[in-house]
């Protein structure tokens, strides 16, 4: 991939009164990349986006677009476009005039405007709607018009602020695919803000997870999913969410054991990694994803199935192990019933060990052969 920098943020901080909305954020996005900012609402992701667009000025730090410092540049000179969550389309203009707007204020000749508008309309399949008034369109078509309006001015950067949140679920999925297609076709650099982890995982080339104004992890969707930096990300990304068991790591008869307040769980038959050894005696939280555990006839720890949920093509078993409850995925054809006693096996290679006091990741996978 072409690793030319499209945007770089350097120690950007933005305060609103006493609230620090964006706290010392630095990251870069490469050309042609679809980069997501993921986080719960109020985490500063929209503010970060608005700082990149120039609608908001950072209190500290610098913003670079294609290597040029644009921190002091007003929004309209940055050649950056933003698609908002709602109110995307000018209601007093029809679709054609909406798309034409950016070209008209730049006073491009009429023929050129017409050509560009039609090209973009074709790309976004809006040709049939060109005469519709902006306010008459459905939300998903409005967002398409908003995207078209941005694309027609050929921005260096396309920013999207939760553009699909208000679109209904069925259409949302189609729009996501379409967005990805357009991004691939045009090679536009996009920064996509969302609170929907699934959306971020599906769309992004790389993504950043934000919380309380800070970026806590940057990586590819696989990295974020497989190797979350802390318990927050582990909970936030992935559905159903990761299971957690609290306890102390101990060694008994050469086996690595998680000792909770009421039971012991053998994590691994042998301890080969010295990294694990260093953790012995510490209070930890172990985490594992529902797909990284199995229900077996013979396993390490016993539990009772409390609930069987069918979600799409699989079953989610809610299993109570003493006081803890964990979710384990099972094939849809399996016949588990509520109240059944089962044994749970967790894949030791895919265990995440977090420090109890601050939730930071200590280790992934305890080796066992």
């Amino acid at each position: 991939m072409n690793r030319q920098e499209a945007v770089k943020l350097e120690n950007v901080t933005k305060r609103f009164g006493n609230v620090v909305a964006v706290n010392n954020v630095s990251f870069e996005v490469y050309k042609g990349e679809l980069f997501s900012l993921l986080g719960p609402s109020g985490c500063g992701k929209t503010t970060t986006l608005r700082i990149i667009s120039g609608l908001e000025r950072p209190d500290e730090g610098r913003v670079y677009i294609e290597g040029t410092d644009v921190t002091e540049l007003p929004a309209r000179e940055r050649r950056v476009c933003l698609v908002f969550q709602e109110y995307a389309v000018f209601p007093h203009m029809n679709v054609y005039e909406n798309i034409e707007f950016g070209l008209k204020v730049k006073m491009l000749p009429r023929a050129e405007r017409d050509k560009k508008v039609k090209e973009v309309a074709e790309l976004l399949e809006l040709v049939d709607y060109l005469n519709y008034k902006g306010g008459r369109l459905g939300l998903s078509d409005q967002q398409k018009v908003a995207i078209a309006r941005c694309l027609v001015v050929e921005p260096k950067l396309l920013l999207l602020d939760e553009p699909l949140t208000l679109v209904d679920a069925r259409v949302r999925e189609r729009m996501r695919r379409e967005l990805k297609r357009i991004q691939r076709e045009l090679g536009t650099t996009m920064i996509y803000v969302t609170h929907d982890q699934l959306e971020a995982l599906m769309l992004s080339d790389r993504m950043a997870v934000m919380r309380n104004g800070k970026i806590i992890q940057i990586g590819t969707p696989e990295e974020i999913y497989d190797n979350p930096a802390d318990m927050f990300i582990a909970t936030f990304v992935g559905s159903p969410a990761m299971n957690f068991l609290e306890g102390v790591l101990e060694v008994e008869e050469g086996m690595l054991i998680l000792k909770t307040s009421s039971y012991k769980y053998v994590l691994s038959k042998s301890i080969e990694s010295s990294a694990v050894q260093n953790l012995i005696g510490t209070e930890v939280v172990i985490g594992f994803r529902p797909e990284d555990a199995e229900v077996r006839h013979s396993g390490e720890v016993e539990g009772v199935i409390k609930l069987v949920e069918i979600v799409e093509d699989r079953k989610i078993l809610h299993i109570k192990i003493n006081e803890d409850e964990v979710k384990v995925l099972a094939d849809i054809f399996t016949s588990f019933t509520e109240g059944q006693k089962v044994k749970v096996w967790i894949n030791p290679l895919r265990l995440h060990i977090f420090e109890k006091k601050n939730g930071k990741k200590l280790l992934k996978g305890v080796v066992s052969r």
Partner: protein
Amino acid sequence: MIRKILAKVVICIVLAVAVVWTITPVMWMISLSFKTYGEWRTPSLIPHNPTLDNYIMLFSPQSITTIFIAYTAVLEPITRPLIRSLIISATATVIAIIIGFFTAYGASRYNSPGSFTLFFTLLTRMLPPAVFVTPIVIYFTTLALIDNIIGLALLYAATTLTYAVWILKGFIDAIPIEWEEAALLEGASPLQAIFKVVIPIVRPGMVVAGLFIFLMSWTELLFALVLTNLNVPLSVQVSKYVTAVGALWGVQAAAALVSSIIPLVIGYLIQRHLITGFTFGLVRG
């Protein structure tokens, strides 16, 4: 069932009373304007000998040789005050709407000049206008604006400005800032964003506020009476037909009718905008 019918009957009666209450004076005015001098004081709605004398008196008082001859010296043709009033009201409306829009925009988007000051501007409308007469006369004398229609236009613009600001602020508040931001990001300057996005959307609001201000300027009597001498606007002219010598009721009725036609015509021409203006907040839900 009976209750429903009863309710309908009551509503009809109330509406009928309201209609009669509003329409009767207008009917009386129309009738009076076509009556001859001798008939002015007779209580009949239909004129017995319909005449256009009153209107002739209105438009060319010099050509009258009848009973009205005693008055013609003091009266000028109504076309002149009519044109003056049009100039005054239109100028006041345009000034108030332009300044009002930008003030409202600042108030809505930048909270300038602050909500207290903005509220304070309404204070001028809370006191009886007579309170301001003396200071205004002194100002106008100092500025040599007495008997000057532009002076009146400025005064009306100033006194109605606060309405323009408050009405337009409501409209601008209802426009999501995202529309302007989108325009900025697509390369528009802040002024272009205002002229191409905000103004077209608030246009119905401008029409409503404009009509309101136009009507207030059109009908204003107190200041017009005090501040003009020869260059009187229509409202003053209408009052002039009741003189020390005697009252020309029929001519005054005709003048009042002419005076109400202009606002009616304007209202008719802009009715499409008026409906959008009055229902602006509702449509967006």
